[in-house]
């Protein structure tokens, strides 16, 4: 159904591009800043607060990185690279999968690493559910979100993408803000892990099949 070697070629190329891109440095810096503020404000909090925040923090870091990396899709669309790629033996599905995988892997690695750093700096010892959540649920959730975001970016016109970006950004921060404000003390349990993971996997699978019905004409013509 998909050609694995094509996808791995694409993923490798994406990695090279991101490593050379200055915007990755910028987004890493903003994460460091974010973590700095977080650590500063939570230094003397009890550990049940860590339990509350860590799940959200790791997701949000992953999404912010993924969000900024997905911009390459919009850029390649505008520059017409995607049009040329779609004339090659690479199918739209493979292009989408390669993009989604590379962006998700990078975002997940950064999210997991920075979460570990926060945990270490706070001398917090995570239990098994937390470890499982960070190493397994978080990457899957990021994968599902990036897959969906890539699909949206392929489809929408430039102006619609701008609007979608604002909506996404504002809602992420509203969610974060609400959590910080009302301090929902939901600890990570196997139940939440199950729910989030199966939600992510389902979303990803649905997106994976939806892309088969994508209209290439829409993708190359939505440039305004």
């Amino acid at each position, binding site marked *: 159904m998909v050609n694995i*070697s*094509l996808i791995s*070629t*694409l993923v490798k*190329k994406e990695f*090279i*591009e991101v490593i*050379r*891109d200055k915007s990755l440095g910028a987004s890493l810096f903003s994460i460091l800043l974010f973590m700095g503020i977080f650590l500063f404000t939570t230094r003397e909090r009890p550990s049940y607060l860590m339990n509350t925040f860590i799940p959200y923090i790791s997701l949000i870091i992953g999404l912010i990185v993924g969000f900024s990396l997905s911009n390459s899709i919009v850029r390649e669309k505008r*520059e*017409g*690279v995607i*049009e*040329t*790629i*779609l*004339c*090659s*033996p*690479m*199918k739209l599905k493979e292009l989408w999968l390669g993009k989604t995988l590379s962006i998700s892997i990078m975002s997940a690695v950064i999210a997991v690493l920075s979460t570990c750093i926060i945990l270490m700096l706070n001398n917090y010892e995570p239990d098994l559910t937390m470890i499982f959540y960070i190493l397994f649920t978080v990457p899957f959730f990021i994968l599902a979100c990036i897959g969906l975001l890539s699909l949206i970016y392929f489809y929408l016109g430039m102006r619609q993408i701008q609007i979608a970006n604002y909506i996404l950004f504002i809602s992420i921060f509203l969610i974060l803000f609400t959590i910080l404000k009302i301090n929902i003390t939901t600890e990570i349990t196997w139940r939440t892990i199950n729910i989030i993971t199966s939600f992510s996997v389902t979303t990803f699978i649905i997106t994976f099949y939806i892309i088969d019905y994508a209209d*290439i*004409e829409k993708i*190359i*013509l939505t440039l305004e």
Partner: protein
Amino acid sequence: MEQPVIIVENLVKKINDRFILNNISFNVERREIFGYLGPNGAGKTTTLRIILGLMRPTSGKALVLEGNLSKDINLRRKVGVILENDGLYNKLTAYENLDFYSRIYGVSNSSERDRRIKKLLDLVGLYDEKDKKVGYYSRGMRRRLAIARALIHDPEIVFMDEPTSGLDPEAKIIVRNLIFQLARERDVTIFLISHDLDEVERLCSRVAILVGGRIVALDTIRRLMHSLERRSIEITFKNMQDAMEVAKYLDNMGILYNLRGNSIRIFYQDSNISRVLKPLVMMGLKIIDIKGNVESLYDVYLKIVRGG
């Protein structure tokens, strides 16, 4: 006889109830360099996109090697494309760009890839710049690299949308020769969209001229030239006053001309050229050069496009 390599039949494309393409039909044979001409917005790129399977036709069909590029993935390996955009990654070097494309086109042997990349880079004159990021390339260098990119997998057919736009004169000649060699020596079929009529005249055997989504001419260049009823000669005088005097004379005679500096281009019908020339010689003007039959594809094109 072999089937045509490209078959376009009764192609119609409507966007928002407007006809972008209106009943387009043409064939391209193997080894042919086919020119696809027309003013801006005529629908050339749209035709190409439909052939490549990037856009769906409203009705009609476009076949390449008897298949459909939108459905047949393996068929795409036989086709090279240079679209209006170069299709290059700015953060990769020229070498890396070609390496990436050769991989996705299935050139799996790494020494073979290396050989082809270096050969093509050399061919388009970018070998010395191969490790520079494409983002730092000039427009013409990018265009050259796009040409190399389109040829990396040894395609049987190459579609080119204004391949030489932005190239310097020397590079244009290099690319022209390259296109010519591809067709002659490697049996490659070339579909060439171009605004450079000089280039088309030198390269193409047949052309289609598209105006407002309709094909208004489809023939060999020689026959199209022949269809021009008028002929012209170009006379260059030693000084401009002479040329202006002749212009006055032609005005009186009601003969069409085109004055440019000290040379004048006189249009004449059939065989009345001596009627025009004799008086000019008698006037004792200093003629330094006469060129006969200076019609070019340009004249044919203008006549067809303006004449509708």
